[in-house]
């Protein structure tokens, strides 16, 4: 009797599983495609990079294991410290500008009654430009002679700036480019989040006598909290890997004022032909970002609970 019950329960289990598999077959198919793509284009390079950071290779013969030599080489590089400081500063500044500005623009766009679609296109336009084109455009804007920015400063009788050519303004100049290039995406995401907030909440707040700032503080921010937290994480992860701006605009100068970890990584791998050193820097950056992401997610989950 017991045997029959066990067999029948197993049969039922198998049948249920078969049904579940059949029901989710398409989903598994899509998942397989994504898994193969991730395996080859994300996980495999990550593993190769991990291995590379402990190797010396010329891509011809078998690589030689060198232990922590590559890490020693890059940490003793005089540009190593400035690269991390500049990366942290860039991230901080890009966060202040690149996080707040799109949110404010989204708030304004959300309140507008007219030309909303037109302005949305205008705000999103820079995203459609290839990054290299946008950066080269700013190269002209920043020209200390006939550049657009100094011409404007000149017209309003303000002192002109050296922009990229000064150690004090070079990094900020890169932040401005980065903010401008990424403004559109952030704004559109915030705008979508804002439009999902029920209008009744604002009406209730207004009836309670809340002004604009209090409505933003007590309704908008709590209602968009989740998206704000995700965007914060994504933005920090993206800006820590800043490369195009210093590569195309300053070459890490003047006096290493804009050399970043990703730029130094490029220098090691492609200018110096030291892929092990580049790999070591990449691994360090990845660990820092992974630890940061884990702590951030943990803290925001605790906060939510």
């Amino acid at each position, binding site marked *: 009797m017991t045997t029959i019950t066990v067999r029948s329960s197993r049969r039922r289990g198998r049948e249920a599983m078969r049904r579940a598999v059949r029901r989710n077959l398409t989903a598994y198919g899509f998942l397989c495609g994504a898994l193969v793509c991730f395996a080859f284009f994300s996980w495999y390079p990550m593993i190769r990079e991990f291995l590379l950071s402990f190797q010396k290779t010329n*891509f011809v013969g078998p690589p030689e294991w060198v232990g922590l030599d590559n890490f020693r080489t890059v940490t003793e590089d005089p540009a190593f410290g400035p690269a991390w400081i500049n990366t942290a500063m860039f991230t901080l500044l890009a966060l202040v500008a690149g996080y707040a500005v799109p949110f404010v623009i989204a708030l304004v766009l959300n309140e507008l009654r007219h030309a909303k679609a037109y302005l949305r296109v205008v705000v999103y336009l820079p995203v459609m430009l290839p990054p290299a084109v946008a950066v080269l455009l700013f190269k002209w804007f920043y020209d200390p002679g006939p550049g657009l920015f100094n011409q404007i400063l000149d017209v309003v009788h303000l002192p002109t700036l050296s922009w990229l050519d000064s150690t004090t303004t070079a990094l900020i100049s890169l932040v401005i480019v980065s903010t401008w290039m990424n403004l559109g995406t952030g704004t559109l995401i915030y705008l979508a989040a804002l439009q999902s907030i029920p209008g009744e909440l604002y009406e209730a707040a207004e009836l309670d006598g809340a002004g604009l700032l209090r409505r933003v503080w007590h309704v908008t921010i709590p209602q968009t909290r989740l998206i704000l937290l995700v965007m914060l994480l994504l933005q920090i992860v993206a800006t820590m890997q800043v490369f195009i701006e210093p590569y195309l605009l300053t*070459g890490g100068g003047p*006096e290493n004022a804009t050399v970043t970890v990703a730029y130094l990584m490029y220098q090691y791998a492609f200018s110096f032909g030291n892929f092990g050193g580049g790999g070591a820097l990449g691994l360090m950056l990845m660990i820092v970002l992974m630890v940061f992401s884990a702590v951030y997610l943990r803290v925001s989950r605790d906060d939510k609970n």
Partner: protein
Amino acid sequence: MKSRNLSILLAAGITLTVAACGSGGDDAKDSAKPAASAGADAPVTITVGCQPPKSNPKERAQWDADVAAFQKLHSNITIESKDAFPCIVPETFQAKLAGGEMEDLFYVYYTDVQRIIAAGQAADITPYVDTVTTLKDMRPDVLSVFKSGDKIYGLPRTNYSTGLVYNRKLFTQAGLDPDSPPKTWSEVREAAKKIAALGAGYVGYGEYSAGNTGGWHFTSALYGRGGEMVTPDGKQSAFNGPEGKAVLENLKEMRWTDNSMGTKQLLRWEDLMRMMGSGKLGMMIGAPDVVQAVNNDFKGKFEDYGVTALPEATQSLSGGDGYMFNPKATPEKIKAGLMWLEYRFLTPGQGQFNYERSKTDGLPVGLPSTDLYGSTPPGVKINEQRTQFATVPVDHFQSYVDGAANVQFKLEPPKAQEIYAVLDTAMSAVLTRQDANVDQLLADAQKKVDNILAKSS
């Protein structure tokens, strides 16, 4: 159930990646072994880089014609041309090597040669190179670019010493004599001031200071003043001396006292080419290849430019390009490649030295950019034919040719790119900061470069 599925997926992912890693390693090991030798006349196919791009139809047609003629002469050899513009970029070089896509005969700039040799990324061609008949006439200092010890790893295509490129049109506009270009650095300063005084946007003298190009030109200027980058044993830096100081002080004076270097700095190769092409830049350190690039790609005109010897120079950084062999190339491929190099790039009156054909095809002839043989018979013949079929004003380059005959070619220092990256800092400092302390900058750079050299020795 969830965790079991996750485990299966994870296992599959790990298996895939491990399999991929494993196969990569095996490939690398297998491909590192040269294939077995074949008979002398056995068919051999070689891939060759730097075929002129389709955007340059005249030079491409010449290349293709030379390939056809060469294959007719050597019926067992097939050449597969690979075009690219530019012919080499650091990103694709390493990727092509890693992916097994590197040509059997690949193009290099002088600046990369020693790094490639040190990394074991080029084949030793010493046992086969004696077949090149003009090798004995080649300038030893030019051949030494491709040597490490007694071994040879490649052959040059072009060679030049560094000089001073100047805009003759601007010289005339500024009241200077374009046929009497500056011979000293103080004359350069004076000329630069006059050119900058032509008006807004005019730059008397331009200099690099970013993307490692600043360090490269610091080396050029330092060599010109008789300085050395490293000690003879290559174990310590040697640029922190009167010559190095003079290079930076001169730039600082021109930038801040004379205001003759423009306000925009952190310039790289394409920036100065663009400025030269636009006709607003008076002078820069460079060689005849700059004039060619400005003419071909930056809308300049040959007749507007001249090149003269580097002021006060008795020695000069050599520049140029050439070909090296894939370390996986078989002896047959190397032999075939050497025959092609001799045919296309190293024989007077033939291939790149077929000036008569170039003139007929409407290509510029007369730039003194390829001094491979000095005053040996092939060198004399090449120079005669270059003058005979010249289409550009050769007298615009005569002072450079005269000067180059008396300067000693010097090679780049070991760990060149790492050292250049360090010296970019000093170059960018004097050009962007009025209060830059030259002594301090050189002392900092010396410390950093000594560290780099200590680690590599």
